[in-house]
């Protein structure tokens, strides 16, 4: 098999993708793309299934802000280190829910052998708010970003090389939006605010960070969609975050990169949903002429290759299985048109004087 073919996989957070818009339900696709490429860079929204996770040495777990900076050529990724994962808890979490999260951290130490700690609680509640953009994309905010960053600084000072942050999110036990999500037809209303929290921390500290929301348990729903089921198995969403961060690559300024670090210039391809081509990492890859595979994966957005005038610039794939086949062909140096019929005639020109 040819050398690894570093590939970036993005399923944007909070846009309701049919695959990857729920509880880590793009993870099977990521596993196949990792096998085909030998090295897959992807983000927590793809990998996090609350109590469920998958650990694969070929997958680099990179939070979205760091992912954007990597795609833009500003950061490099350095794998191979076991991270010491500090736990940042929102002061707004009630004592019993806080204990549940501390027990998850203890379980990951005792059962999985992860290095976790210390634990720092914010000096005031973060006060997370949720909202939706006009497009239907989930967004959100927090009233006390200063408290988040202070707690993050304290964790880094005390030896954490990565941070799992748990913020208390507003409970919702009966809204139509939540019901639609649980039944497999809506946008994850928490995802936008989660991304804001983790983006803030990574931007400020430049170390791997990821977020798990703290929520009261929901009543049993017999009609629960399988894609949302992973979030209803346990009391917290934290295990996948601790596992993902424990092997996340370090974020290195590109100017300080060493041999073996992965830079955007080493990317072989980008795999992204066909209707979600308007994110910063995608535009940065287009700038760099990274081959783009656009997979049919409907969402609330229609920012497509057609609407962006990119029809000849991206390769279409009907499924992630097809995208994996395309990656394998690229990795092995097989020209993609050779796999299609009809095979177009060669371009022939005569050499004439101007």
């Amino acid at each position: 098999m040819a050398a690894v073919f570093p590939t970036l996989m993005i399923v944007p957070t909070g846009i309701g993708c049919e695959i990857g818009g729920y509880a880590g339900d793009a993870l099977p696709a990521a596993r196949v793309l990792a096998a085909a490429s030998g090295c897959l860079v992807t983000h927590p929204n793809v990998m996090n299934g609350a109590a469920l996770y998958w650990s694969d040495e070929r997958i680099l777990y990179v939070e979205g802000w760091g992912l954007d900076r990597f795609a833009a050529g500003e950061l490099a990724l350095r794998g191979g280190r076991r991270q010491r994962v500090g736990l940042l808890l929102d002061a707004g979490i009630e004592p019993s829910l806080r204990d549940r999260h501390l027990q998850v951290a203890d379980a990951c130490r005792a059962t999985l052998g992860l290095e976790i700690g210390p634990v720092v609680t914010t000096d005031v509640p973060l006060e997370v708010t949720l909202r939706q953009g006009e497009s239907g994309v989930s967004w959100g905010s927090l009233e006390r970003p200063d408290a988040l960053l202070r707690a993050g600084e304290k964790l880094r000072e005390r030896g954490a090389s990565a941070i799992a942050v748990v913020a208390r999110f507003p409970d919702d036990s009966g809204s139509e939006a939540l019901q639609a999500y649980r039944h497999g037809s809506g946008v994850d209303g928490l995802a936008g605010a989660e991304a804001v929290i983790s983006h803030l921390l990574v931007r400020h500290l430049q170390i791997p960070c990821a977020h798990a929301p703290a929520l009261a348990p929901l009543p049993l729903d017999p009609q629960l969609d399988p894609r949302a089921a992973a979030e209803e198995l346990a009391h917290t969403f934290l295990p996948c975050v601790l596992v993902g961060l424990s092997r996340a690559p370090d974020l290195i300024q590109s100017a300080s990169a060493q041999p073996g670090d992965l830079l955007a210039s080493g990317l072989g391809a980008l795999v992204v949903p066909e209707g979600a081509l308007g994110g910063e990492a995608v535009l940065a890859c287009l700038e760099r002429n990274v081959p783009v595979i656009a997979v049919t994966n409907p969402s609330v957005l229609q920012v497509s290759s057609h609407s962006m005038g990119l029809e000849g610039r991206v390769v279409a794939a009907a499924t992630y299985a097809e995208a994996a086949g395309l990656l394998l062909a690229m990795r092995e140096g097989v020209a993609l048109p050779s796999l299609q019929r009809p095979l177009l005639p060669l371009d022939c020109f005569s050499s004439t004087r101007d």
Partner: protein
Amino acid sequence: MRIESLQLQLPLPAYQTACDWRGRILDHLRVHGEPLRWAITSVMDSPEGGSEVVIEAVMLQHEG
């Protein structure tokens, strides 16, 4: 530091392809603060040629 959401409608000229859009979008966003997270959420053909894009963004406002 404050966090604000922003929606921006931006014309992009026909002589630029989507491969050139990122820098132009960032220049426009930075007028309103520091962009933390953003994406194009819709693209339309512009009557004057080129494209008109809608961007939804989360912006940081630094005080003092």
